[in-house]
């Protein structure tokens, strides 16, 4: 029996493999990766560099897991797909037959044609190989320049700073991660980044990268014409689907990513795609065609498994959520919060007098129904927000029961009272009293207290 072949052992491919095995204990599964022998957590690359963990610690499953669950692993790069004969061709020329093929090949760092962008020392941060390269460069680097104001850039800055390597961080936009963050949050993050001794330059752009006598990066010039000596250039202006190697496959429909329907099927009947590299032909309302985060990769994989070996099931990810950490500030978001409130929306923003704690809730101006929340420096409970967003809860209800959403560890300073006072000042016509009888606690218990008694 020809197997299901999954190309890529990232979170999307691995979730697909595991969920397929849960649904079907027989079907042969082969997972191929050129990157590593085993699945590791890509999000943990930074912790390896900073010495918090070893590579071994970042494997979500022990090595015996794969053979125990009869998921065959193959280390190697795939050169191309020969769809007509249902085969893939490996870099060493070997051909493998498949019954179903899953493309979970992830992303690759964006490069925008900067002169010198391929010099040794200039790199993105996505793969294990990128990490190894950075480790090598960091041994002798005296300064690094990072370009791109997003999550990978800030991680790379944090990483290099722990080695005592000064970082100049060039961000083209006026606000940090301005495509996602509203102004107040962005400004707060900028302040925090600077506190960590990072030379953050807002509104400044990389122009070109220059080679030194050793054939490696020696300096960069900015659009403003400044020359900055550096041995590392971090190219962290986002990622794009890793599909260049597929460009010879004319029958496979591609745009920026591999085009898929709501069942993760490509235009070819037994070829599927999940994770960063997949692009929805017809994205769900309010969601982007490319979903390049850990959580969506996981959900893609789980849905794909259903469609491959279980009942057909269209993509249904529930509410949008995401999280990140900016140096020491944790960030969580549930629902949709755009940098500017959308048409018909209002925004309620609260910031603690001291420390980095903020909450922003966007809601419908007429109905007061909540649309989404950003929290920084506090932890909020996923299920409670899922409940509020799913039941179209209105602001007064959310404000009154805000205690239920708190997920901070015991003894942490609580901010709900201050948040509600702030709400009452700004919206005196919708005065609420904070329900302090809700004990911060377990969801199923909370749910009972949140639901109106009937």
């Amino acid at each position, binding site marked *: 029996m020809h197997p299901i072949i999954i190309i890529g052992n990232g979170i999307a491919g691995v979730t697909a493999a595991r969920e397929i095995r849960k649904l079907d204990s027989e079907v042969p599964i082969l997972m191929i990766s050129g990157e590593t022998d085993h699945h590791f957590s890509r999000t943990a690359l930074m912790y390896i560099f900073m010495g918090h963990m070893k590579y071994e610690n970042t494997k979500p499953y022990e090595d015996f897991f794969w053979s125990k669950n009869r998921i065959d692993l193959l280390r190697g790069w795939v050169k191309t797909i020969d769809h007509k004969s249902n085969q893939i061709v490996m870099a060493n020329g070997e051909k493998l037959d498949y019954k179903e093929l899953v493309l979970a090949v992830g992303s690759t760092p964006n490069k925008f044609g900067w002169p010198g962008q391929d010099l040794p020392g200039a790199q993105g941060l996505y793969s294990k190989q990128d990490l190894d390269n950075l480790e090598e460069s960091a041994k002798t680097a005296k300064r690094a320049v990072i370009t791109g104001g997003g999550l990978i850039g800030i991680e790379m800055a944090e990483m290099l700073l722990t080695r*005592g390597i000064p970082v100049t961080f060039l961000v083209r936009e006026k606000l940090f991660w301005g495509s996602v963050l509203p102004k107040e949050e962005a400004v707060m993050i900028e302040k925090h980044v600077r506190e960590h*001794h990072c030379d953050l330059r807002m509104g400044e752009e990389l122009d070109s990268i220059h080679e030194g006598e050793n054939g490696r990066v020696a300096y960069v010039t900015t659009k403003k014409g400044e020359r900055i000596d550096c041995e590392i250039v971090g190219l962290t202006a986002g990622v794009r689907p890793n599909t260049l190697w597929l460009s010879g496959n004319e029958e496979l429909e591609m745009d920026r990513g591999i085009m898929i329907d709501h069942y993760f099927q490509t235009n070819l009947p037994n070829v599927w795609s999940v994770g960063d590299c997949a692009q929805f032909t017809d994205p769900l309302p309010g969601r982007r065609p490319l979903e390049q985060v850990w959580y969506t990769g996981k959900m893609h994989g789980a849905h794909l498994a259903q469609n491959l070996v279980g009942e057909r099931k269209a993509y249904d990810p529930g509410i949008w959520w995401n999280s990140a950490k900016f140096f*020491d500030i944790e960030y969580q978001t549930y629902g949709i919060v755009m940098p500017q409130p959308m048409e018909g929306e209002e925004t309620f923003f609260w910031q603690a007098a001291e420390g980095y704690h903020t909450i922003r809730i966007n809601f419908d101006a007429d109905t007061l129904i909540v649309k989404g929340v950003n929290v920084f420096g506090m932890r909020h409970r996923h299920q409670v927000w899922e409940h509020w967003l799913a039941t179209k809860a209105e602001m007064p209800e959310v404000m009154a029961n805000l205690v239920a959403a708190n997920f901070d560890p015991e003894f942490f300073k609580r901010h709900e009272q201050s948040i509600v006072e702030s709400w009452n000042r700004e919206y005196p016509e919708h005065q609420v009293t904070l329900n302090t009888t809700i004990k911060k606690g377990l969801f199923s218990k909370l749910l009972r207290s949140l639901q109106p008694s009937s």
Partner: protein
Amino acid sequence: MSDFIHESHSIVPPDPKLDKYQRIGLVLLGIGLATFFSSLFAGYKESGNNTIAFSTTMILVFSGGIIYGLRTHLKRQPGIANNGIMTTSVTSAGAFGWLIGITMTTLYVLYYWWHEKLAGMTSLFDPLSNAIRGKDADQWFMYGALYTIGVIIMGIKALAKYRHSRYQMIRTSSIIGSQLFLAFLTPYIMERLNQPYFAPNYFWPLDYKSMMPDKVSHLQEAGNVGNFIIGWVVVMFLVVTPLLTYYFGKRWYCSWVCGCGGLANTAGDSWRQLSNKNLVAWKYERVTIYSILVFAVVMTVIVWLSASQGLFPSFGPKVQEVYGFLIGSVAAGVIGTGFYPILGTRIWCRFGCPMAAVLGIIQKFKSRFRITTNGGQCISCGNCSTYCEMGIDVKWYAQRGQDIVRASCVGCGMCSAVCPRGVLQLENGPTEQRAEYQVDLLSSMKARKMEGKVK
């Protein structure tokens, strides 16, 4: 001095290597340790310099240790920073780690079986011993003093390291206080008052001696105070332990009160990541810890039968002796603590402690405690598992969206502290909801299922 306690706001990043304050601290600590170890050979007592030697050692060790500990963490921003732990020789079982491990193990071996070799070191503590209990130090006093000093100095370092977390600050203060006042000072103050030995934070089965017939009859002879101590031990074990473990999990003891946990979470904190997380280790753990619990129970029964009924007249004392050697000394001391820098900090608590076994059984089957996973927020990064001193593969549960209920969890809260995505929280709540799944990838959140939005 102000730049000592305030992190710099310069655009130049701080050197991750040791700065001048850290170096000063280490030099002072180094000289202090040198005078301490020289007491093995120097005979300060004979030369009449004991008080000077003791105070010099203490001043150097305390000032050096505290300067180093505070500076190391106060020079950076508050937050989790386990930078370089996996690459530094001391903390990653490298050459320095082994050196410390071998030194500690050697000291334990000498202390248990050749304590006369430590006479010089012991007598160094005469001034302190005389001040507290009015007589010269013996090896027990020296050990207690060293242990407490380790907990205090490294506890201050832990307070600085985890200053962003009030849970860790309060918990660390509790274990420092418990070691200093309950485990160290109380017994010696009792002694000074001519009262029986009493360390309120230890009781059977961890302190198996507290329930031995000779001890009990000795306490009965001591009158009211003795009877109070017997009552305390019995009530603590039979009433307080089950009750508090039901409401708060075993953490109330292991991470807030117990001296073994206290040393692990202060002096041993930099080695917590060395505990083995493999499934195989968990299998061994379950065999050893419950075997030792059975051993402790059987030993206690035999000793009592021997003492009260005259059964097994020679075997009774022998079995207590064997237990004391294998479990009390080798497992709890030499391996449990001496091997901190090689095997991680809670080796004894995880593989050996009969008290932890009892607490674990209660926690597993009848407790409100669990670690809640926050929906689907886990990114499988592995920090929680890596920094679990009990070797629990926390992320195995977290990445499945499942709450964590494990007999071994001591509730130190470090998984929650190191989590970069706010996924884990120590919680007490209704027992029937423990270990529930907080997320289902296909039908999204449990909330939607519960509300009937998705089948």
